[in-house]
């Protein structure tokens, strides 16, 4: 019986090759998108879940307030952990990790120094290995980061530094400073951790300098992790935190600082607090899942639509089978096994497509998702359920309707009433599909337009033809020599040494006190030299530029500070004395506003002044034509001065573009997925229109014999679809509009969604639909009635 069903299924497929292949292909596109997203979402959500304490680890984060605005940092004062452990009981274990240290590692080998630049360096203590699961593979497992000058390195890194993993007792120097002895080798970090450290150094070495800042200094990379197993401990901490802050900060708590326990499981997703690796906003996570479900849904609907349309043609077969003894369940079984088989095909093709596409997607997204998760029990179970559900729905629907037909009627194909009922349902499905397609198109349009908007928005400074690199050492004289030599290069227009470039992910803010009125404002600070404005094309509106000086005697402020401080005319700010970090000086110049942080945030009031203690970035403005060549020459000068360090530079416009990297990736991903959705939708539409044309062949023939023109027949077809399209639009537009408006809320500068925009998306979908439907309808309209009537 089953064999017979398979044979029938196969013959039906090969009889309608076009239908079969578009049907299977459409479904496999949907399933493979789903598989890819599944692997990706699995990867994203697996971050740091492997620790045995995963559900009990918390990070203590810090919130501060200024007015109604809330600022977030994942760091705590370096002095906090000790006080915390004393004041709260019941904490299983805790550890302070000071990450984000990158720098030069020097290994002496046979009298020769070898240099390595490393960014995965953190200072921490033994407790790290209690809190987190990271196996110590050789060496002792206790007292390995207890005393100063101890280091634990990963297996991979041991190979890199020393060429072997038998490295206990070997030494290296960090940042040309302290010498560290390796006490243990630990396993390499897995792909899915937000603690990607190759090298741990004893926190003892950092402790003194870090704690000197006391309770007022917070580094975002000094993060405090705790293992709390019991709920009452957690509660007592939560309720005791306010008193704790009050006890140690007292009157100094001007920013209304509060602390919060953040579960480890949220660290990968909560973009308000950074981590040591990268984050995926929970938005993106949800959008991805939503997109996958939508794609699968539209592909399934498509499949159901086409299958049912085809099964309508088989009522005669069903009638006969019933006459010869088949009962409803036999017939239903036949249809179910048929769709099951077709669906299985699609699943296999989807396996092939997605396993081929996986590496590209990883490359593209910069992720390391593993396709093999699909072959794990949970993955296979998911695929199996997808297969089962689609086969059941698309098979059940025709089997329920057709298997109930009166056999004699079915043989004579007199089942118009039932057919028309399925036709209405099918229309409903088409509306749903149109809706999804429109949803995707609107979403994609918004993304693309917002990206363009961000790219073309005025950022307040010149980003082209400026290369930047990091100063390896904080040696002022050396940096001045470097800048001077660079300036002498032909084709170098300008060189500036500063804290950061105008817009930078790392920013520094502090309080500016108006000396006269004693009013305080939070401002961004950009320590920089006198060439800063010219190098980055910042516009000086009033007053004078900075001068070369070693002590601060003047400030530059931005327009928005003038506004914030209540100067209606920014020029009036000139000469006003301001106290920043205890140094009183007048504002010498007012600079036009520019983005001082990433471009997603708003323009902030900013001060620029000479403070060489913070200088670490060199900006080089070059003649555009041969920028790379010029930078090669710059590299030679750099290597002369800093022979230990590699010369790595990047262009400012690329750096700026990186600010939107995640958006850029997401929009591309969205575009790809909406193309798939549109293609799948078109396939379904085409199938349906072919079916409709076949059903109406006779009607069209009769109408034409009675004198209808081709145009009138075409209208008959289009009317149907225009109505469906409009219904779908009415449903999709508000939903898509609402969600995209929500997404846009993350941006300080954003596009407006006007009615023209919606009209455009409607026309776009209508155009695509017409292209799909048009060919078949025209074919039907032009058909010779004598032929179409004869075939009846």
């Amino acid at each position, binding site marked *: 019986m089953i064999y*017979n069903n398979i044979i029938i299924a196969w013959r039906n497929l090969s009889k309608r090759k076009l239908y079969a292949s578009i049907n299977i292909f459409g479904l496999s596109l949907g399933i493979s998108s789903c598989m890819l997203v599944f692997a990706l979402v699995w990867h994203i959500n697996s971050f740091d879940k492997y620790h045995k304490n995963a559900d009990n680890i918390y990070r203590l984060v810090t919130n501060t307030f200024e007015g109604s605005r809330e600022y977030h940092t994942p760091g705590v004062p370096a002095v906090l952990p000790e006080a915390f452990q004393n004041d709260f009981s019941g904490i299983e274990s805790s550890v302070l990790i000071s990450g984000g240290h990158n720098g030069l590692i020097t290994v002496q080998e046979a009298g020769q120094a070898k240099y390595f630049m490393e960014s995965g360096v953190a200072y921490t203590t033994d407790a790290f290995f209690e809190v987190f699961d990271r196996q110590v593979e050789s060496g002792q497992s206790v007292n390995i980061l207890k005393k100063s000058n101890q280091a634990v390195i990963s297996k991979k890194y041991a190979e890199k530094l020393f060429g072997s993993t038998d490295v206990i007792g070997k030494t290296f120097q960090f940042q040309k400073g302290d010498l560290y002895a390796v006490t243990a080798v630990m396993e390499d970090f897995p792909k899915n951790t937000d603690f990607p450290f190759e090298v741990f150094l004893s926190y003892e070495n950092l402790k003194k300098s870090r704690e000197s800042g006391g309770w007022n200094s917070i580094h975002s990379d000094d993060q405090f992790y705790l293992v709390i197993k019991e709920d009452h401990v957690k509660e007592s901490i939560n309720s005791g935190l306010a008193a704790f802050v009050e006890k140690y900060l007292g009157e100094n708590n001007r920013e209304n600082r509060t602390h919060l326990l953040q579960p480890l499981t949220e660290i990968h997703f909560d973009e308000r607090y950074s981590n040591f690796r990268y984050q995926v906003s929970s938005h993106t996570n949800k959008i991805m899942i939503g997109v996958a479900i939508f794609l699968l849904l539209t592909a399934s609907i498509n499949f159901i639509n086409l299958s049912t349309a085809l099964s309508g043609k088989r009522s005669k*077969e069903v009638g006969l089978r019933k006459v*010869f*003894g*088949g*009962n409803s369940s036999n017939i239903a079984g036949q249809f179910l096994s048929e769709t099951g088989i077709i669906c299985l095909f699609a699943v296999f093709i989807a396996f092939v497509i997605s396993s081929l596409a996986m590496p590209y997607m990883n490359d593209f997204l910069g992720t390391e998702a593993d396709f093999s998760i699909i072959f794990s029990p949970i993955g296979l179970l998911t695929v199996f359920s997808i297969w089962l559900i689609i086969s059941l729905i698309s098979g059940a629907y025709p089997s329920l309707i057709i298997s109930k037909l009166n056999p004699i009627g079915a043989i004579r194909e007199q089942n118009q009433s039932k057919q028309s009922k399925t036709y209405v349902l099918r229309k409903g499905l088409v509306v749903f599909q149109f809706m999804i397609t429109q949803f995707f198109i609107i979403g994609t349009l918004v993304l693309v337009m917002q990206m363009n908007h961000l790219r073309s928005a005025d950022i307040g400074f010149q980003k082209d033809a400026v290369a930047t690199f990091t100063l390896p050492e904080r040696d002022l004289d050396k940096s001045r020599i470097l800048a001077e030599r660079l300036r002498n290069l032909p084709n170098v227009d300008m060189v500036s040494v500063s804290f950061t470039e105008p817009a930078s992910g790392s920013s520094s803010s502090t309080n500016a006190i108006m000396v006269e009125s004693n009013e305080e404002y939070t401002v961004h600070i950009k320590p920089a030299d006198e060439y800063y404005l010219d190098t980055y094309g910042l516009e000086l509106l009033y007053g004078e530029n900075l001068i070369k000086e070693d002590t601060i005697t003047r400030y530059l402020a931005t327009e928005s500070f003038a506004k914030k401080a209540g100067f209606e005319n920014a020029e009036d700010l000139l000469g006003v004395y301001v106290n920043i970090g205890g140094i009183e000086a007048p504002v010498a110049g007012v600079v036009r506003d520019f983005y001082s942080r990433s471009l997603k945030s708003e323009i902030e009031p900013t001060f620029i002044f000479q403070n060489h203690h913070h200088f670490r970035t060199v900006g080089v403005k070059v003649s555009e034509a041969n920028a790379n060549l010029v930078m090669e020459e710059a590299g030679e000068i750099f290597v002369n001065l800093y022979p230990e360090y590699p010369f790595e530079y990047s262009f400012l416009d690329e750096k700026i573009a990186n600010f939107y990297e995640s958006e850029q990736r997401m929009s591309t991903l969205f575009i790809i997925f909406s193309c798939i959705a549109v293609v799948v939708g078109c396939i379904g539409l085409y199938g349906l229109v072919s079916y409709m044309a076949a059903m109406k062949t006779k009607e069209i023939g009769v109408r034409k014999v009675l004198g209808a023109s081709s145009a009138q027949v075409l209208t008959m077809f289009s009317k149907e679809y225009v109505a469906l399209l409009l219904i779908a639009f009415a449903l999709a537009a508000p939903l898509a509009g609402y969600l995209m408006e929500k997404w846009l809320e993350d941006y300080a500068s954003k596009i407006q969604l006007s009615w023209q925009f919606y009209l455009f998306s409607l026309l776009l979908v209508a155009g695509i639909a017409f292209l799909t439907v048009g060919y078949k309808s025209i074919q039907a309209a032009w058909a010779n009635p004598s032929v179409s009537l004869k075939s009846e």
Partner: protein
Amino acid sequence: MITLKNIEKSISSKYQRSFILKGVDMEIHEGDFITLMGPSGVGKSTLLNIIGLLDQDYEGEYFFEEQAVHDMKEKNRSKLHKSEFGYIFQAYHLIDELTVYENIETPLLYRNTNSSERKSIIAELLDRFNMVAKKDLFPDQLSGGQQQLVGIARAIAGRPRILLADEPTGNLHSAQAKEIMEVFKELNESGTTIIQATHARENANYGNRLIEMSDGKIFQNIQL
């Protein structure tokens, strides 16, 4: 074997009820070869469908060997239908996607006949109708007469006691028609009860009874 009492079937439209069958009484004995005759629309096919348990929408009483079919549950009726009746259509109605062999096999599959038995039944039928060489062909590769032979083979594969044929020769030319009727005669002689509906008077000569219908009623019942 079959007794019909006062069978009526009607279609109600908005303002009137029009009868397709009205007050049909009929007795069918085992081994009968009955021919139903009458103009189009007289109710021949409807009567056949009712007899063959394909149409339940009628009034009156239907007894199949003392069992009251009109009171039967769907499940039992379907069982009865499966075991006792075979069908032959004017337009052959073979399943286009199946070969000759598979078409004949279909009713056996629904009767859960085991594989070796199926093979022997089908082989015997193919042999009997001289179709052995054509067993792997599809219906559209056969002539009308051949298709109808396959139709008959399929109808009798499940060894039904009653064979119902609705205009079995309507689409055939006279030589083919004659061949089919000879087959019917043979089947009848070996014990199968046959009821056929036809327009062709000459076909009636193969049977033992001729029932002429008119306006949904039995007009004449002639023993031949």
